[in-house]
């Protein structure tokens, strides 16, 4: 059992990464990765919400009527996100201003529904909690990698601080505007998947 829980936590970080292998949550991965800071905040919020929603659904899993299970999952997620957003507004106003639209975006994140339906409906609360944390962190890791590259080459900054020295610009270096555009995020995610498949030969499709 302990081994299974371990798997639930570790699998989604690399071998069964939600973005790279399950191809879930791509939409938000494109939207929030132009800069590092929102990417990290988004990654953390998704981690917390997936873990909490997983636990709740896992506790309810034997009582949920099969025909309306998706809508029940959606209600749980939406209620959780709303409550978290209300609490942030009251106690951490700055953070909530920064998150603005992303809080709402969490509800539509496919990872949430995907994990609830595929994992929490069949497993106990503790395993589901670990699965949520694992998937959230796996998702966050990809966001951070993509955001790092996009912010560095797109704006010459990291976390908003200038890292490309001014003398580069004077020598004719220009920020790559394409990096900030959403399509580039897709290309970068593609590159990461390429690298990931090269390392995990058994995932390659013929």
């Amino acid at each position, binding site marked *: 059992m302990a081994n299974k829980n371990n798997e639930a936590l570790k699998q989604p970080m690399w071998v069964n990464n939600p973005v790279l292998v399950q191809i879930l949550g791509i939409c938000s991965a494109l939207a929030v990765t132009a800069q590092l800071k929102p990417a990290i905040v988004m990654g953390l919020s998704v981690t917390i919400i997936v873990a909490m929603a997983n636990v709740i659904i896992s506790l309810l899993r034997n*009582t949920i009527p099969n025909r309306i299970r998706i*809508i029940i999952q959606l209600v749980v997620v939406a209620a959780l996100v709303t409550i978290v957003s209300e609490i942030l507004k009251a106690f951490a106003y700055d953070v909530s201003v920064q998150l603005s639209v992303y809080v709402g975006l969490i509800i539509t994140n496919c990872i949430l529904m995907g994990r609830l339906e595929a994992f929490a409906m069949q497993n106990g609360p503790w395993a589901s909690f670990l699965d949520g944390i694992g998937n959230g962190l796996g998702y966050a890791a990809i966001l951070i990698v993509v955001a790092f590259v996009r912010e560095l080459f797109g704006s010459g900054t990291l976390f908003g601080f200038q890292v490309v020295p001014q003398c580069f610009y004077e020598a004719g270096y220009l920020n790559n505007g394409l990096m*900030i555009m959403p399509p580039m995020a897709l290309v970068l995610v593609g590159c990461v998947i390429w690298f990931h498949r090269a390392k995990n030969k058994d995932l390659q499709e013929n």
Partner: protein
Amino acid sequence: MATKKFRCKVCGYVHEGDKAPEKCPMCQAPQSEFEEIVEEGAAPAKKGLNTNSNVYTILYAAVMVVVVAFLLVFVSQTLKERQTANVINDTKQQILSALNLRDQADVAATYDKVITADALMQADGSLAKYNGEFNTSYKSEFDKGNLHVFEASINGQKKYVIPMNGLGLWGTIWGYIALNEDRATVYGVYFSHSSETPGLGGEIAGTKFQDRFPGKSVVKGNEVALKVVKFGKADKSSQYEIDGVTGATITSTGVNAMINKVLSAYLPFLTK
């Protein structure tokens, strides 16, 4: 039952045998994605409720809705006071930001010290004291025709702050513009937005863009002349033109439209 049946949760393929296959022959999903199919007849009726009956489903949905609704109402009610206080504080900070007093530690105290009056512009351009509660939505005030002007005093010099609102690329944008006592030159600005693209349109909230405003002139003759133009197109010698944000033409145009719309309404005050 001689053999068990397993269904792949990914593609729905059904495998017959003693255990699930290593890999799904249809979609290559791993063994863990298979679930055993328990025949309806074979499984003895579960004790307790039948979770698939209509009555149960409807009751479950009803209870769920009521519980969630109460939960949300409870959370919203208990936190409302704090939230309103935060919003008021934030609005005051935004007004102060236009006066180049960013990131104040004690916003309410600084606001009370710096802002001397919350006034409404009359049709003839004069100012009359505003007697209502402190407002946090200047869009609805503007739409109602209540044209707010904040009078501020910084180091003995009088400044005016005008709230603005408009539309960016994805949603609303708003800001505050502080004018010097001559009502013609910009002292400072503050912009914010609800959902502009981070790194592009979102940059209007940064000081890099806002620092281009101070010292520029607002009106020329009887018209609002302050203009945000495409990045790099601003005439360096012009008193009225300001470079927009690079790569965010629509948001910059939105800022330009907002300045024009709002300040035009304030012309009687500006040209008085």
